[in-house]
């Protein structure tokens, strides 16, 4: 037994300084301009989910164009590129990042750590309002002359700011400004998430007792704080190029016989800046998903997480490594082959901690008491999907394999599997899991199961065939095949199939939206701890937790978050704030 000072039953209350909470005075400061992390979390989540629905519909339009070229008269080439750009940017930045960090981060960090609120509630509130402003600016670009930018979500210069790309007049400016606002807002939120983990933990909650969800969100927040400045610098420079005529990224260009005033800039520089943000971004989305899935699996398999320490180290290692792999997005940019070799190596190395995590999830399930609840279904689906998407990542991480596959549908299939479908599955699982804590009621199970099976199977029917299309050489970003349609009829048929599936899966999300709204009133009463889980957010005296989260006294943590099925314990779970049971010390010898 490790020598730990034992807290007797009558330990004095937490020595953590109790924070002075902001007390809202009116309805407006209570629900709208709220400084309560839980309300901010709901604001973030609802906004992000709404944007997700819009981005989903944009993808419908794209798919319709790919399957039935010209069938929708309002989709011309320009519109298609605008759809692509907005779909990608919305999903990656405004949905996934905002939902995982702003939504789940805000809700779960204080509750899971036994804190009353975030450490800087005012900045936290501002963070949301900056985010909303960024969203408004982004959507406003649909209404400006020329429409939103069609530069692709990577916004590569020079084409992003030269004639011929839609949205040159206004769209690109709005996009860059919106991203900059988002980053400023995120920095305020991110400071909160990181410093709350550092400072806000309740007594007994050491770092190594934090649930893996918090570890994932914490590490991802640190990464986001360090990675987003790269996008910020890139945005500022491109804005200068576009508005003030500088040439940070713009080489000499002759456009229809006239020489543009640009000259000497480096488009590659933008790629470096963009991917210095862009690759960590993948893990900014993935790490919270890893953490959440670990907790879902542990709770619903009634088993402690296998290799907790290893899981923590893997999260940290992935976070650090993800900063030295960015150039694997640039294999075809003409860089020095030695660089390619270096980045291919680091890319493959990152597969090691990732694989450790997958093994540990599987070993957690091994001989577990698996309850196939809706959150568990989503968690299991995540493991499968992430492995699938991750394996094609190993293909693409190798320079020689990547070069022929670059810019084909294979890449689209890869990243949609690994950072589209997989994190979305976790988001769904997490919402089914924590909805009872947020609202006090459970989501409908039959609707949830319907939603799960259609989404899970449908996502495979959409994205698996895309791998084949990619291997056939069907390029991404093409609005139609046109005269170069050298592809067999089967490729066209497959495109139609994918589109039909996309329409079905998209429509099935309505069941989820309906479930969210309907269960608010009519869901089954959940009680405080419907999943019989150990972590602190389920131990709040009142559900949904009021402002301040815990009652008069903060909980004291006596154990880690995964005490399921402890031999000799009266129940099959022991909450983190449960003082040591009689005889427990003796039974826990290494």
């Amino acid at each position, binding site marked *: 037994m*490790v020598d730990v000072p034992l807290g007797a039953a009558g330990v004095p209350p937490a020595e953590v300084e109790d924070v002075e909470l902001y007390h809202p005075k009116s309805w407006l400061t209570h629900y709208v301009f709220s400084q309560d992390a839980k309300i901010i979390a709901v604001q973030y989540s609802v906004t992000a989910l709404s944007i997700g629905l819009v981005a989903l519909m944009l993808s419908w339009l794209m798919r319709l164009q790919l399957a039935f070229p010209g069938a929708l008269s309002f989709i011309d080439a320009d519109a298609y590129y605008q759809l692509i750009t907005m779909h990608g940017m919305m999903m990656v930045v405004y949905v996934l990042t905002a939902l995982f960090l702003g939504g789940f981060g805000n809700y779960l960090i204080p509750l899971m750590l036994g804190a009353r609120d975030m450490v800087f509630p005012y900045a936290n509130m501002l963070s949301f309002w900056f985010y909303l402003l960024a969203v408004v600016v982004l959507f406003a670009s649909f209404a400006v002359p020329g429409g939103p930018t069609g530069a692709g979500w990577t916004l590569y210069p020079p084409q992003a700011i030269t004639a011929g790309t839609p949205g040159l007049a206004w769209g690109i400016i709005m996009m860059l400004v919106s991203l900059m606002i988002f980053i400023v807002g995120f920095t305020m939120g991110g400071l909160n998430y990181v410093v709350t983990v550092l400072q806000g933990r309740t007594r007994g909650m050491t770092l190594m007792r934090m649930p893996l969800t918090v570890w994932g969100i914490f590490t991802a927040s640190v990464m986001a704080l360090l990675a987003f400045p790269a996008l910020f610098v890139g945005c500022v420079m491109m804005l200068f190029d576009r508005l003030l005529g500088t040439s940070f990224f713009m080489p000499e260009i002759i456009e229809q016989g006239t020489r543009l005033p640009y000259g000497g800039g480096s488009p590659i520089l933008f790629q470096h800046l963009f991917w210095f943000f862009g690759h960590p971004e993948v893990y900014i989305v993935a790490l919270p998903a890893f953490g959440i899935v670990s907790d879902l699996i542990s709770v619903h398999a009634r088993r402690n997480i296998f290799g907790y320490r290893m899981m923590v180290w893997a999260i940290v290692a992935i976070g650090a490594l993800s900063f030295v792999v960015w150039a694997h997005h640039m294999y075809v940019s003409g860089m020095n082959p030695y660089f390619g070799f270096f980045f291919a190596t680091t890319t493959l190395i990152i597969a090691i901690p990732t694989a450790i995590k997958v093994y540990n999830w599987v070993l957690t399930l091994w001989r577990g008491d698996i309850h196939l609840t809706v959150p568990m279904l989503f968690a299991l689906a995540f493991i499968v999907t992430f492995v699938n998407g991750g394996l094609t990542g190993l293909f693409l991480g190798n320079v020689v394999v990547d070069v022929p596959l670059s810019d084909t549908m294979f890449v689209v299939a890869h990243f949609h599997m690994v950072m589209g479908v997989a994190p979305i599955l976790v988001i769904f699982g997490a919402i089914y899991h924590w909805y009872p804590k947020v609202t006090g009621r459970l989501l409908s199970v039959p609707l949830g199961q319907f939603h799960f099976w259609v989404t899970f199977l449908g996502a495979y029917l959409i994205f698996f065939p895309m791998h084949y299309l990619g291997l056939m050489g069907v390029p991404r970003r093409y609005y139609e095949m046109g005269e170069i349609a050298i592809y067999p009829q089967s490729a066209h048929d497959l495109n139609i199939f994918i589109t039909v599936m996309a329409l079905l899966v998209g429509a099935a999300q309505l069941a989820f939206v309906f479930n969210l709204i309907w269960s608010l009133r009519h869901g089954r009463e959940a009680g405080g701890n419907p999943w019989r889980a150990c972590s602190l957010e389920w131990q709040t005296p009142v559900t949904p937790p009021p402002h301040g989260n815990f009652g008069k006294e903060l909980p004291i943590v006596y154990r880690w978050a995964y005490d399921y099925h402890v031999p000799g314990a009266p129940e099959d779970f022991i909450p983190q704030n449960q003082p040591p049971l009689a005889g427990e010390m003796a039974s826990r010898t290494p």
Partner: protein
Amino acid sequence: MIIVVAFLAIVIGIAAWWLSTQRIMSKPWLEIGVIDEPPGARPLPTAKIGLGVFLAVAGVLFALSISAYSMRLQAADWWPLPVPRLLWFNTGLLILASAALEWTKAQSRHANLDAVRFGLISAGVLTLAFVIGQLVVWRELVGEGYFLASNPANAFFYLMTGLHGLHVLGGLVALARVTSRAFSADEVGGERGGLRLGLELCAIYWHFLLVVWLVLFALIAGWAGDFIEICRQALS
């Protein structure tokens, strides 16, 4: 990009050192009972840690601009700007402002409220003079025909001084708040030490801004260019 990776390596190194003090080798599944922080480890104030994290973020921002600068520097069409004499004067102002805050911090320990007020005001005035000085430099350069868009060296100069200036302005807002607190307080240690802490945070931020400025100034003046060149040759 080596510069920003090096900067990140330092940040990650600090994080790794900190993690190594956090019992990451412990086996939480075997540990039952309250684990308290080791006695004597006085926790830092939350605001200070917040500032530390923010400085890491701002540091990455500047490291990235410097990375981009050093990548662009090698091209043949790079004509460095002349270094206006005024920049030296401005640098002096910023050094004085930083020193003034350090002095004020020392005075706050002696609970000398009048000195604290004087120090805060003088630091604010010096910093404001720095910002105005930078704007005058901009005007001078524009007057001599060094426009933003006429050469990449100019573009980087305006971009980096601008970014730095904005950070200085942000700091001035914080400084103004601390100053107003100093004038409404009756004693230095009042308000649960809020004044003293705010002063300390301002001092840290000013030192950071000074270091960033010195690095940027070295780059603009062209000395760092030689240094980067030497590093590059050593690497290749």
